[in-house]
């Protein structure tokens, strides 16, 4: 009798599980995007004879079934917890946690990628700066693995090799080493980026090496919504949100940012963006090909052209105090061939400021 009850329980529970999820999946409204994963979700595929015969319909349906599965985020958390805590795996899909900080494995050093990035920077230099009286600087931002990998016994980039190779290939630029001014606590726990309120010393050093003094005197403001970084969704772990601060100062108060894409002025800090899919877009509206920060209160006529990735969005407002204008160029979104149409290269200072993760995965650079 107990055997029969056990069998009944097993079959009933399994049926409830399978039929319950089937019904739920059928009646559940289709979600357009995953907030935690920051990506659009697959929609129901359209059936046609060609799609079915070629197998495309089936492939698309499998993707749709996975993306739209009920409790998707909760189940991803179950997987992450099982993997990290039950199986004691050191990472979950390459994402690992050390001392409360999350990062993603990125190794080994991809020298062809560094070479490619360097070749594009050199192209920019030769095209627009070579025969001009322009001071060119280079600086590299370490990713979080630089501080976390060893502690986690994880493989990591050869950072010394990366910077040495880049300096060697960009001999026209003076290298500014900001590694000593950064530590793990300068980064968000759940995001790849650095925290603006913690990089003032790095910004001051960088500016000083370029002949500019920053007085500081910042006031710290807290964004109203908690910040969940890019690794939050990837880790799928139940972690608390973080505080997103920005720094303001008298010098920054009158600064304006001009967006060449939309031909409008945009806020330096946009609280609405902090509530969006990519909260780091709070700083200078996130991924933008070409921006110009204008500082009407500048005490100098010096201008800076900053070739940058997303890390540049939060440090540029700090550097703005020392320049009449800073032009931010992201050559992942605009071809370097087109820059001459928008920027007149004369006697500005130029800084190539890139993170190791972009340099080691540079295929997105145009």
């Amino acid at each position, binding site marked *: 009798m*107990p*055997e*029969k*009850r*056990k*069998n*009944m*329980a*097993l*079959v009933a*529970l*399994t*049926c409830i*599980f*399978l*039929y319950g*999820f*089937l019904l739920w*999946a059928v009646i559940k409204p289709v979600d357009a995007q995953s907030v935690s994963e920051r990506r659009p979700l697959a929609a129901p595929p359209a059936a046609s004879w060609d799609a*079915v*015969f070629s*197998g495309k319909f*089936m492939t698309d*349906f*499998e993707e749709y*079934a*996975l993306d739209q*599965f009920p409790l*998707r985020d909760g*189940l*991803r*958390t*179950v*997987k*992450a917890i*099982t993997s990290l805590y*039950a*199986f*004691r*795996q*050191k*990472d979950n*899909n390459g994402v690992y946690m050390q001392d409360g900080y999350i990062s993603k494995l990125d*190794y*080994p050093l991809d020298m062809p990628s560094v070479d490619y990035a360097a070749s594009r920077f050199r192209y920019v230099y030769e095209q627009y700066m070579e025969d001009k009286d322009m001071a060119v600087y280079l600086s590299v931002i370490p990713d979080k693995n630089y501080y976390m990998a060893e502690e986690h*016994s*994880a*493989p*990591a980039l050869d950072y010394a090799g990366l910077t040495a190779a880049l300096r060697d290939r960009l001999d026209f630029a003076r290298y500014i080493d900001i590694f000593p001014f950064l530590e793990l606590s300068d980064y968000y726990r759940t995001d790849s980026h650095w925290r603006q309120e913690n990089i003032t010393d790095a910004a001051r050093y960088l500016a000083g090496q370029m002949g500019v003094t920053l007085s500081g005197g910042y006031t710290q403001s807290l964004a109203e919504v908690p910040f969940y970084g890019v690794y939050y969704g990837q880790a*799928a772990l139940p972690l608390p949100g973080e505080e997103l601060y920005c720094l303001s100062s008298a010098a920054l108060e009158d600064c304006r940012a001009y967006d060449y894409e939309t031909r409008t002025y945009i806020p330096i800090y946009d609280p609405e963006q902090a509530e969006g899919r990519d909260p780091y877009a709070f700083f200078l509206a996130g991924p933008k090909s070409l921006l110009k920060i204008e500082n009407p209160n500048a005490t100098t006529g010096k201008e800076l052209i900053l070739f940058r990735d997303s890390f540049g969005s939060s440090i540029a407002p700090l550097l703005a105090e020392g320049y009449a204008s800073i032009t931010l160029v992201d050559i992942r979104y605009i071809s370097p061939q087109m820059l001459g149409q928008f920027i007149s290269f004369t006697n500005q200072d130029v800084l190539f400021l890139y993170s190791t993760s972009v340099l080691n995965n540079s295929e997105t650079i145009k």
Partner: protein
Amino acid sequence: MLFSSVTFLFYFLPVVVALYFISPMCLKNGVLLLASLFFYGWGEPRYLAFMLLSITQGYIFGLLIEKYRGKGRTKALLTASVLFSLLLLGYCKYADFFISNFNLATGLSVPLLKIALPVGISFYTFQVISYTVDVYRGTVPAQRNYVDLAAYIAMFPQLVAGPIVRYADIAGQLRDRTHSLSGAAMGVRRFIIGLSKKVLIANQLGALVAVFKESAEPSVLFYWLYAAAYMLHIYFDFSGYSDMAIGLGYVFGFRFPENFDYPYISRSITEFWRRWHISLGAWFRDYLYIPLGGNRVGKPRWLFNIAVVWAATGLWHGAAWNFALWGLLFAALLMMEKLWLSGWLKRHRVISHLYVLFLVMVSFVIFDAESVAAAFSRISAMFGGQAMPVLTVESVYYLKSYLVILALALIGATPLPKKLAALAGKGRYTRVACHIAEPVACLVLLTVCTAYLIDGSFNPFLYFRF
């Protein structure tokens, strides 16, 4: 369609089970056949024709063999049917292998046919051959109902990766089978265990193998880690699939043969092959080795028979020389054991275990290699034959990261969990606890497997390419 997919688990299976159980007995095989054709067509709509062709010729030749029994034409009919099956398999699986080797030998450049291998063709071809041969031998009567025969050959639980179910074993069940709560519970339990073996162990070890193959920093430790991981991966992948197939069989009232019996506890290669892919070994024994004369011939002929069977076993797994080498390695080992080693192995318990594990591990390195040269290169690297460090940060990291899964796999590859469960079932209180814990544990495993599938990562079945 994969068993370990959301589409199968949460769409196909519940719908098919419902349709099956609301249908009257006379329609159940028809429901199974339609479901199986849908299952196969889902992944390979174009290759349904190959399977239907194979089934139809088996059906017709089976009837003809029976009709002309005793009239002297049956051998020709059987030969025609087997040739038809083998030519179809040869065309789909081996044509490019022969052409490329022909080109290599002659210097010609005959263009390759580049035919994508229909999933499961090696399995269903062998089932069709076993049916016609058994009808020819008079072991079973020819099946007059096309739907029943097609349902047997195309039955989705065992269609694409076995076990290779022989018609003789299932003929009675096709017409008359019982469905019970205990059978369904047995099937559900077995299916969930198989799914867990596949998703929680095999897929994870497969991911480790993939990391090794992409590594730019090889080390001796990483090669050993790869070899051990691959050996366990292939076992949990394939035996997990067999468990799911057998479990589904139980749900639909069938009893499929066992395909694995803890092969890694074997103490000789002979024993290993009695425990590994049992249905394939039995097929080659009954339909190739014994017809060749088996061991009831002179010693040279006997050894020749072993070599032929194992070369065929190797090539059954894939049309490449490394598979032939893999089969021939086992042929050589089996010959050595039969001629000299078996007594010695029986006397040395520990060494015999290590001997099997080591040789099987090396054999799977050959099995997994892209070419014979790559196989030797990997084996050489395992023994420090190539200039590389003993260990790297990466290899130590992945060893630590997969240590628990490797340990679980090692324990799971032995009968220890089964013995512990049996022991728990004997105690008065532990038996009660087991009755409560078992359904809960199955539900937890199903939930965790679903979570792993939703997270989506490494999920192919190795044996789908055979």
